[in-house]
């Protein structure tokens, strides 16, 4: 009985989502249960973590900055991960860049954005305080600040969705969750090999830069090749916390491989506003991650040792 990949796709978190499970022909109902669990979990995460949903816990928290607000366990955990990420990246990842992002023009769900000139966020500064009271299930933002969990929220949702699949089917041989290119994988593929993750080449749509081989963990890509807005599409959504404006240095796109998709997403965000030399140094200082950095012009730069499918080096040129 040859295993196959049972798969479902849906639209959530502003992008296309997919979940897949390795299943033998007799596992149809169990696979179906696991796929449904992934979908339900992603939707539950979006209901708590989305800044675009007026009724979400995050929207309530942002609207009540300066006060303690009761929040759900998902938002509490995501905020804790975001604070840890800010510390680990020395502030290159900062969940409190939202006022700067809104000032730049990304003030509503991307598909509803209107074109208007960017302005600087008055009085905004990076590193605003986020207090968590985990015992009481509440959080408080520094007055005047607001949080965006966009990327890390997707990574967190993908991780939880993968856990939900395993909970729904404890014998699950292997699974993948893909939230718009943020991927979490675990276990075996139907071919009993590693998960094959293509890295899209933003310069040549439809082609890939290479294929990553993963037995578990996460992958995320961040870049300025999509989600452009403002006059003539001149702005992008990657805010540099050091300046409070869309970052100037940085690659067209960067892909990060890490033990978890949350880590991959956090470091991809940090590297997406870094120059090449800075990116190399960043990965050298974080040996758990590796990646592929694609500058606006020139060849792709491997960061660390990404698990690329490769056979041998053909040519070495000066």
């Amino acid at each position, binding site marked *: 009985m040859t295993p196959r990949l049972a798969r479902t796709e849906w639209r959530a978190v502003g992008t296309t989502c997919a979940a897949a499970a390795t299943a033998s022909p007799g596992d149809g109902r169990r696979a179906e249960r696991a796929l449904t669990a992934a979908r339900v979990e992603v939707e539950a995460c979006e209901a708590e973590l989305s800044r675009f949903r007026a009724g979400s816990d995050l929207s309530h928290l942002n609207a009540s900055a300066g006060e303690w607000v009761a929040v759900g366990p998902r938002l509490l955990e995501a905020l804790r991960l975001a604070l840890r990420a800010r510390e680990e990246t020395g502030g290159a990842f900062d969940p409190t860049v939202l006022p700067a992002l809104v000032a730049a023009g990304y003030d509503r769900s991307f598909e509803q954005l209107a074109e208007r000139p960017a302005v600087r966020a008055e009085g905004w500064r990076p590193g605003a305080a986020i207090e968590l009271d985990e015992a009481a299930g509440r959080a408080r933002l520094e007055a005047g600040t607001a949080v965006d969990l966009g990327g890390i929220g997707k990574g967190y949702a993908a991780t939880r969705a993968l856990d939900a699949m395993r909970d729904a089917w404890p014998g699950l041989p292997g699974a*993948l969750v893909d939230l718009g290119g943020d991927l979490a994988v675990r276990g075996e593929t139907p071919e009993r090999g590693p998960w*094959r993750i293509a890295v899209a080449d933003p310069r040549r749509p439809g082609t890939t830069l*290479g294929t990553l081989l993963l037995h578990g963990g996460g992958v995320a890509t961040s870049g300025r090749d999509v989600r452009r807005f403002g006059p003539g599409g001149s702005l992008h959504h990657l805010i540099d916390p050091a300046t409070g404006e869309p970052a100037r240095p940085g690659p067209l796109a960067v892909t990060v491989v890490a033990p978890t998709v949350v880590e991959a997403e956090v470091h991809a965000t940090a590297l997406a506003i870094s120059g090449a030399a800075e990116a190399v140094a960043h990965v050298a200082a974080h040996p758990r991650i590796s990646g592929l950095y694609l500058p606006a012009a020139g060849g792709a730069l491997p960061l660390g040792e990404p698990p690329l499918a490769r056979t041998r080096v053909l*040519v*070495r040129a000066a």
Partner: protein
Amino acid sequence: MTRIWTVVLSVWAMLAIVAVLAWQSRPAPAPAQAAAQTLVVKTVNGKQQLVAVQPGALGAPHATTATSGVVRP
């Protein structure tokens, strides 16, 4: 004379049959090798490398990572 012609025709018929059988049982052409993809990478010291990737040995990817696009309603 008739016997000679019979032998000649028989030989030609046999050769024709052998040719048809040989054509039918010819070995199938080897499947075309998938063209190796070449990945251009730049090393830390700025030098460029060309790295060969074997797509044929890999199979289709299970998923693709890219900067999250926007799904228009």
